[in-house]
Structures are given as structure tokens and as C-alpha cells.
């Protein structure tokens, strides 16, 4: 066990260690000395970094393209709105995460039997499904057009979300480096083969899906008190799924560092260009970027990084 921990620690480069040792305290102390605007921007960045990591945990590691992040996000937001009336913030966030875990386990059992493009389509439509179900419930049972949530001060949300992000990153790293993660990458490579060599593929996929949903859920729950009001159009917004997909694909599927880099860059762009009255040109350019990215750099930033790091001959050898 100790040995394995050591190899995991060694697997991270020294510059990354130094960077994170400097960066983490700085990020945690930001609310003490900086203005509200900067916290807002950082909050968006951290939100997307976390979502991309959580998305990568499932889609990147297993190769199943999940286009329905907004579905889980919306469920979590509504769950938080209901629960937060009874329990304090942190506990509510945790409970919402567990709810997402519990909901997504049976969902995964059914959905993950569907393979390849059909899974992507099913998950794409999942947002519509849950949005219409929640809307139906609100109209027919609770007679509400939206729900209000007690607003929590921004620095508190920021600190909680930062902690969640770090935990998510560590969890993703541990999963990737563990035997479990190797099983997942086997599934990504060839699922039939993985099942032949004794990997319980159904269990592996489902549990990863649920863990990923858990992390997406706690983030959604943590960010909801920022605005104080939710309805089906704001939390089941396709823009969430789309942004996460763009960041994940541009970063390179299954790559944590690539995903983080692209999430930081793109959410900075998002903050600077899309908060105006007319966000459409930005959305369109994001779509074009995704098309160009997947067409010319199918492996994203991770592919570029690897090519830079390894000498040309070695990189070629690695591909074959």
C-alpha cells in the first residue's frame, strides 16, 4: 500500500508539485484580499475545472461520450433547493451528492448497456427528459414556476467549491492510477476483450458513472446558492453540457491536465466575452472551435503536450 502511494506521488512531476504547493494556499486566501469581481471569475473557472474533471472521470476514462451533464446538474440543483430548507449548507451539499449517486446507479445499469453513439444520443436526450419530468412535477404537483434558495455569501461558496475541486482532482487521479482505472482504460480500448479477461465491465462502468454523477452533483449543489433562484431553463441549460464537452474534448479525452488547462482558458474566455447582453457570437465561436479541435487535433491539448515532451521518434513509436 505504502509502495503504491509512493509511486503515485512520484508519478506527478516536480514542477507540478511546486506549482500546486504555491497555488493552493494562494487560491484559498483569495477571498481575504481581493474584490468581488475576481472571486466571481475564479468561481466560474473552478466550477468548470471541477465539472470537466468529473466528466472526464466517466467519459474520458471509459470512452462513453456523456452529453447529459446538465441533466445531473439540474437534478442536483432541484434536490438542493428542496433539501436546503431543512439542513445546513455543507450537509445539504453532501446529501445531494449522495442522492445523485443513488439515482445514477440504476440509471447507469440500464443506460450503459447501450454502447457507442447510441449512448451519446441517449444521454443527449436525457436533459430533455429530466427537464420535462421536473417541469411536469412542478406544474402538476407543487404549482411552482421556480424555486428560491437562501443566498450564501460568495467567499463561503468559493472556499467550499475549491475544496470540492481539489478532492475531485485527487479522486480522479487515484482512480486513473489504480487497478480500477486500468480496468476502465481496458474498457475504453475494447470492451469485449475487457470482459473476456475478467473485468466486470457492467459494474466498472456503472460505479464510475455514479461517482462522476456524485461529483457533478455536489458541485451543482454548492453553486446553486450563488444566484438564489432556479427554474428548469436555468439549471437544465444545454450550455452546461456543451461547455463541459468542449473543454473535455479540447483538453483531450481522459487527460486530467489537458482538461484543466482547457477549462481554465475557455472559462476565462467565457467570463470575458459571454457575460454581455449578446452571448451568441461567443457560443458560435465555441462551436467552431470544437469542430476545428476534433478535426485537426483529435487528442486535444494532451496530444500536443505529449508531442512537445517526447522527441519525435519516440512519439511515433508510442503511437504504434
Amino acid at each position: 500500500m505504502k509502495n503504491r502511494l509512493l509511486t503515485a506521488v512520484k508519478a506527478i512531476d516536480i514542477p507540478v508539485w511546486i506549482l500546486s504547493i504555491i497555488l493552493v494556499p494562494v487560491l484559498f486566501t483569495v477571498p481575504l484580499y481581493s474584490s468581488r469581481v475576481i472571486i466571481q471569475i475564479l468561481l466560474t473557472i473552478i466550477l468548470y475545472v471541477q465539472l470537466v474533471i468529473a466528466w472526464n472521470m466517466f467519459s474520458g476514462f471509459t470512452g462513453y461520450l456523456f452529453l447529459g451533464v446538465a441533466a445531473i446538474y439540474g437534478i442536483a440543483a432541484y434536490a438542493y433547493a428542496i433539501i436546503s430548507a431543512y439542513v445546513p449548507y455543507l450537509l445539504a451539499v453532501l446529501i445531494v451528492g449522495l442522492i445523485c449517486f443513488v439515482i445514477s446507479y440504476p440509471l447507469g445499469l440500464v443506460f450503459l448497456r447501450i454502447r457507442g453513439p447510441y449512448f451519446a444520443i441517449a444521454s443527449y436526450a436525457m436533459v430533455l427528459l429530466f427537464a420535462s419530468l421536473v417541469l411536469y412535477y412542478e406544474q402538476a404537483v407543487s404549482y411552482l414556476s421556480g424555486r428560491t434558495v437562501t443566498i450564501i455569501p460568495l467567499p463561503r461558496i468559493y472556499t467550499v467549491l475549491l475544496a470540492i475541486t481539489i478532492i475531485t482532482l485527487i479522486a480522479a487521479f487515484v482512480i486513473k492510477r489504480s487497478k480500477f482505472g486500468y480496468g476502465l482504460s481496458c474498457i475504453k480500448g475494447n470492451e469485449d476483450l475487457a470482459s473476456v479477461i475478467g473485468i466486470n465491465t457492467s459494474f466498472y462502468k456503472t460505479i464510475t458513472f455514479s461517482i462522476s454523477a456524485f461529483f457533478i452533483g455536489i458541485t451543482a449543489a454548492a453553486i446553486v446558492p450563488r444566484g438564489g433562484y432556479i427554474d428548469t431553463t436555468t439549471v437544465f441549460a444545454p450550455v452546461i453540457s456543451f461547455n463541459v464537452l468542449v473543454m473535455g474534448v479540447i483538453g483531450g479525452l481522459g487527460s486530467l491536465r489537458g482538461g484543466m488547462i482547457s477549462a481554465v482558458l475557455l472559462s476565462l474566455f467565457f467570463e470575458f466575452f459571454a457575460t454581455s447582453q449578446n452571448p451568441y457570437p461567443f457560443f458560435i465561436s465555441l462551436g467552431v472551435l470544437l469542430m476545428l479541435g476534433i478535426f485537426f487535433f483529435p487528442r486535444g491539448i494532451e496530444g500536443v503536450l505529449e508531442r512537445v515532451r517526447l522527441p519525435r521518434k519516440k512519439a511515433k513509436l508510442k503511437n504504434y
Partner: protein
Amino acid sequence: MLITVLNLTVSVLFLASMYLLVGVGLSLLYGVSQTINLAQGGFMIVGAYLAFLFISGLGLAPLWALLVVPVIMGILGMGIYKAAGFSSLLNRNISREDREFTTLIMTFALSWIAANALAAIFTANPQTFPGPDIQYMFSNIIPLKKLLTIVLSMVSVGVIWLIIRKTWIGLGIRCVFDDNEASRIMGINAEKVHFTIFFIAFFTAGLGGTLYSYNYPINPYQGTELTMIAFVVTIIGGVGSVKGVLFGALIVALVEVLVTFFAAPLLKIAFVYFLFILILLIRPSGLVKNM
């Protein structure tokens, strides 16, 4: 009672003909050109907005729009095939899974671009024609617009079916559907076939969109729902099969009308979705096998 049944039947036929138009393009694109088009519904809405622009902006007669818009959309489809990289993707030497994955993401981006471009130009508010009231046939039972939709979509899909079954181009399409590589070896110009398929798919999307805009208020973000229904229709029928699409469209329309009539309109998506998952789990290859 009789009137109600008749009304429901007309609704089923009407919805089915709408879904037929959006489904046939998707089915052919996936079956023949291996392009999973998540933007099919989005482009149908683009067609609807084009019709809206032509009719209320430029004063074109509605019947002319039915001819102009599909042709423009078809040319747009051919342009997208060439310019957006689908042609080189189909010639790229990668596995079928990789190709499907790439086209999936690219068309997802395309649908996003289309919806937001429409929202940027026409605003996100729903648009309708300020046209005259609906005219009826057979004493207040069948609205003329619905009848027009049913007839036009059945006829056009029938023509597509005839083209695929009876002509030389159709023979090429069927060959590429069976095996892309082998048909290349046998001297079929696969590039031309894909070109034709993209034209047909976007032509039907344009026609469907125009008819859609005659019947419903349109807004830029309706594409997702149409795409999803198109996939359900395609999967029920079997990918690449025109007859199957007709079959699937009828089933989906029937489910939708019954749910809307007996339960709540908001639940219809849930039921269609349920149908989708059920078909995928029980019979992923669809109910009809050949083209």
C-alpha cells in the same frame, strides 16, 4: 366520439409525416454516409427560419417557399459536406468507431452553431407567420395545412424510396450502404453517393422545416427535441431503411398523440424516451433490416 377519433387519426398522420421528414435524412446519413447527425433537427429549424425569412421578409408566396427553401438547404448540405470536413473524414483511414465518434461531436457542434446563429439573427423569441386563419376541409375536421403536410411528406419520401430502389444512383447508394470500401473497389463513385445523400438529407430537412413553420411557432432551440425524435424513429425502423422510417414515425406519432390525449403533453417526451431505450435494449438493429 367519431369526430374525436378522426381528429386523433389526422393528428397521428400529421405528426408521423413531420417525423418522417426529419427521420429519413438522419437514417440515410447514418446508414449510408456513417455520419451521426445530431444537427438534423437543428437544420430543420434552420429551414423553418429560412421559410419565415422568405415569406414574411421578402414577400415570397408560401407555396414557392416550399420549393425554394429545400433546394437552398440541399445546397447548404452539400457545402457542409465539403467545407466542414465530412468528405475528408469519410476518406480518412480510421476505424468506424472513431469516425462515428468524430462526426458525432462535429454535428453536435454544428447544431449548437446553428441554434445560436439563429438566436443571434432572429432573437430567441418564438416567431409565427401573421398569415390568415386556418382553412378547413370536410366541415371543420381536417385543416388544409395539415393535409398539405401529410401529402407532401408522403410524396417526397415516396420519391426518395423510388430513387433508391429503381435508379442507378439508388443502386450506388444501396451498394455504399452495404459496404463502403468494397463499393469503391467495384468502381462506384462513393464521393458522389455521399454528396447525393447529404443533398437528400438536407433537402428533407428544409422541406420539413418549411412545413413545420406553417404549423407551429418556431424558436431556435427546438432542434434538440426533433433530433431526439428523429433518432427514435430511425432506431425503431432500422438505420438506413426508408420503409422502416415510415413505420417508426407512425409508432412514435401514435404514442405521442395517445399520451397527449390521455395524460399530459409534458409527459410525451418521457414516453418517447422510454420507447427509445426499450428499442435499444430489446432490438438495437431495428425492426426492418434491409433498405
